């Protein structure tokens, strides 16, 4: 026999425990039985009625997408009601008859008929949208003819409304129909094929915040699909609202200033990293993506040689031209290869290897120091400095200023650009670096590629005296209930590690570029605000080729750059302007930078 140990349970004890357990289990079964009685006997008749027609339908209620504001809380992206025609296949009766009648009101494709017939067998209770965003008179016609249109109903859903189309389209992005991959990745969300989700820009990156939560209702319908009563309803939760760092007025102005040209303007707060404006031209109308566009409109967009869909501020890769010269200047000073006063002689050309490298000024700049070299953008001075530095050292400093890697801004498709060095060339071409190539790179030509945003970040680093800031676009996210989810005042900063005195020398040079008679940017000297800047002219073809064309072929004209910050004493804004094939930085890009700065700092427009 078991249980012989003293104090331990005997079989009788176990029997008692089993009886207690039996009582509990019986109680549980009693509850289940009672519930069955309630459902089947007491309420059976009601449920039987509901079941006769399979008359309970589920309706999904789309949430209103989060709104988007500019930095001054001005509403720039809203939602408007749209009317969609839907059919529940189960209630539709004969599809052919129904579509015959509907045809007189709206256009219906052959596929719709097929889809509906299939759905009648496989998913008879799921409403199918047959027409999207219809006019009010269509709504009226369908409502009045409802008796002849079984299973057909109008559903009112919020639709995206971009209030300032074409102003910040590249930043905000647009919506498009969710693809199956996306749907698979968002399994817990009741998204369906055909639902609109963010496809680019802020709309895409902050999709999870903006979308909101779907609600739904269970309704009882009669045999013709008309709603008799709502059984239960879960209201949708609107998406979170987003406040951008963008100043809409400034953004609008930038787009206006770029006009017909293809180009980009990036302005940021050099201290906080807030992107004040990010314009890219040509622009596109983001509303077209929501309302649907014709084949011709789409073709125009993707075949336009000026690439309107590309956000040139982050996706456009350009040689920086002379704007790059601030980097070898900083490197030379920090590495103590040059001093502020040390002068090099420029005769207008420089012999290296087996050929002459020209200065843009063929008469030469004479004996000049680093500041003067920046002011007049002397190439020969930088050729000499470049040889002293070597390409690898130069690349090291370029990377310190954020070149060659993505800035990390929130929106997708950012390009990293290229900072060439000997290792890069070996990997890319399998060839060793040639000294002559250093001469091209040091004046911002050759393999160098940068984005306008990178240039704005670099400029900010000079303006804020030595910190690399991470640019950002989203200032605040607030839930629909008013709870602040994210509030960014300032982004991450990294000290570049260059002596402040050296940066000061360069900044003085940049100041004189605009404010001294010999400066390349003197034409934009402002009498209201002291601006520091640097011009750049980035060749796209060899100078011989360009000369031969005598400037007649626009696509061979160099890109025009201008970077600037202001006020010099206490910089509030850093700007990078790029005009594709704008020829000279001082002529096309610089005036835009000036106007942007004046508009932002003084709040006025000066022509």
């Amino acid at each position, binding site marked *: 026999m078991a249980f012989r140990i003293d104090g331990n349970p005997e079989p009788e004890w176990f029997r008692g425990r089993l009886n207690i357990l039996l009582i509990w289990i019986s109680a*549980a079964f009693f509850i289940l039985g009672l519930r069955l009685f309630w459902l089947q006997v007491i309420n059976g*008749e009601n449920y039987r009625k509901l079941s006769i027609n399979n008359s309970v339908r589920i309706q999904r209620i789309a949430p209103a997408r989060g709104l988007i504001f500019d930095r001054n809380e001005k509403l720039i992206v809203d939602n408007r009601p749209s009317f969609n025609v839907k059919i529940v296949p189960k209630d539709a009766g004969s599809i052919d008859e129904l579509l015959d009648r509907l045809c007189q009101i709206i256009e219906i494709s052959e596929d719709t008929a097929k889809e509906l017939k299939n759905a009648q067998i496989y998913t008879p209770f799921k409403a199918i949208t047959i027409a999207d965003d219809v006019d009010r008179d269509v709504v009226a016609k369908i409502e009045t003819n409802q008796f002849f249109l079984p299973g057909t109903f109008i559903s009112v859903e919020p639709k995206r409304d971009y209030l300032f189309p074409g102003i910040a389209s590249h930043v905000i992005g647009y919506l498009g129909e969710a693809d199956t991959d996306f749907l698979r990745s968002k399994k817990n*969300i*009741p998204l369906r094929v055909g639902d609109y989700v963010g496809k680019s820009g802020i709309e895409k990156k902050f999709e999870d915040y903006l979308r909101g939560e779907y609600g739904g209702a269970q309704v009882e319908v009669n045999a013709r699909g008309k709603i008799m009563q709502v059984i239960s309803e879960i209201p949708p939760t609107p998406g979170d609202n987003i406040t951008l760092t963008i100043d809409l007025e400034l953004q609008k102005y930038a787009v206006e200033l770029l006009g017909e040209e293809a180009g980009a303007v990036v302005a940021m707060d050099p201290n906080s990293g807030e992107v004040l404006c990010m314009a890219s031209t040509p622009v596109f109308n983001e509303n077209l993506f929501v309302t649907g566009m014709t084949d011709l409109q789409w073709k125009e967009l993707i075949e336009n040689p000026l690439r309107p869909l590309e956000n040139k501020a982050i996706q456009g890769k350009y040689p920086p031209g002379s704007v790059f010269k601030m980097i070898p200047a900083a490197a030379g000073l920090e590495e103590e290869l040059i001093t502020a006063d040390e002068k090099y002689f420029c005769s207008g050309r420089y012999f290296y290897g087996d050929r002459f490298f020209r200065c843009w000024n063929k008469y030469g700049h004479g004996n000049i120091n680093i500041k003067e070299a920046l002011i007049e953008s002397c190439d020969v001075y930088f050729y000499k400095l470049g040889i002293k530095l070597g390409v690898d050292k130069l690349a090291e400093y370029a990377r310190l200023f954020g070149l060659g890697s993505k800035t990390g801004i929130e929106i997708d498709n950012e390009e990293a650009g290229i900072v060439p060095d000997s290792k890069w060339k070996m990997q890319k071409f399998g060839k060793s670096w040639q000294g002559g190539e250093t001469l091209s790179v040091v004046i911002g030509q050759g393999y160098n590629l940068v984005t306008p945003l990178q240039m704005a970040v670099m400029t900010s680093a000079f303006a804020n005296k030595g910190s690399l800031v991470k640019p950002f676009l989203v200032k605040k996210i607030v839930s629909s209930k008013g709870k602040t989810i994210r509030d960014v005042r300032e982004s991450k900063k990294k000290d570049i590690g260059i002596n402040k005195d050296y940066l000061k020398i360069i900044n003085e040079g940049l100041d004189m570029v605009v404010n001294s008679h010999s400066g390349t940017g003197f034409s934009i000297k402002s009498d209201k605000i002291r601006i520091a800047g640097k011009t750049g002219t980035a060749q796209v073809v060899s100078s011989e080729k360009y000369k031969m064309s005598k400037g007649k072929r626009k696509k061979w004209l160099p890109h025009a750059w201008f970077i600037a910050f202001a006020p010099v004493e206490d910089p509030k804004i850093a700007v990078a302007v790029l005009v594709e094939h704008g020829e000279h930085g001082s002529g096309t890009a610089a005036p835009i930078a000036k106007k942007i700065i004046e508009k932002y700092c003084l709040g006025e427009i000066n022509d």
Partner: protein
Amino acid sequence: MIDKKLFANFDWVLFILIIALFFISLAEIYSATHKEGIIYGSDFVVKQGIWFLGGIIIFFILGVIDYHFYERWCLFFYWAVNLSLVYVIFEGRLAGGSQRWISLGFMNLQPSELAKIALVLVLARHFSKNLFIKGVGLRQLIMPIFYTMVPFILILKQPDLGTAGTLVLIAGLIILFVKVGKKTLWSLIGAGSILTIVFIMFFLKEYQRKRIISFLNPGQDPLGAGYHIIQSKIAIGSGMFYGKGYCEGTQNALSFLPEQHTDFIFSVFAEEWGFLGSILFLCLYFCILVWGLKIAGSCRSRFGIITGVGLVSIVFWQLFINLGMVMGIFPVVGMPLPLVSYGGTSVITIMSGMGILMSISMRRFMAR
């Protein structure tokens, strides 16, 4: 180990009750999946039939083996199951998603299901050595809690809150059965509720709390779960007293309850057989549970008794949660109806448990 006398003790009642449920299951799966014009249902019925045959083979094998063998090897089995749970998590991570099963080629084995049986066995082994008339104290509960927490946390990681929670319920029932001292019981309840509140309040972020709710909700659509409940209630209720008749249910159209042959099989049954049939159905289950307790009661080894109770508790909880869910008493969690819902893993697990119960039953006259 095998004795001729054993077969004289073959538990026909247990066997017949199980076979009865099998037939109900096959009939209802056919009814739930067949639809006019679409040959669709037989596929499920045939597959389920194959699972049942496999289940019966396992039932006999486990029944023939002396349950003392399980007592000896249960710790080894327990840790092997835990290891496979770790493997599943690891494999799932590699695949870039959550995975719950190990592919054996012919079937996908869910170690979390085996964990239920492994837990019952180790707890029975532990308590067979630590029993007191006045109830066990905290010291005897340290190991059981540890044994429960290991697979609980691993299954939670999968993540499968439903199965993890069932483990706690099964362990809880066994612990209550062996009797807990009053002080210990109250302190356990106190500590448990404080820990739960702290856990939810401080360690979970808003989105995690939401995620837990969606763990509980297998329906992807937050509204979908509630929709299933409404439909399920309509189906059950519309059966009224006598039911609509076999295969005459209108609510089980394929489009209505996507899971009607798995978790919602009972609503199909109740619609067709009404209150009368449903009560008889409940009685059948009740008989199995009572018979299980009877088997435990007539066993002479403590390990056998507690194992019997544990196996009954596995069936009981799944049954209670599933039926409560389809009748709209509990929220929707993914929980199959033992032996009736469509699905191989569930059938194999429950049949393994029944096999062990059979082993205990056949040796009820043997002295230790």
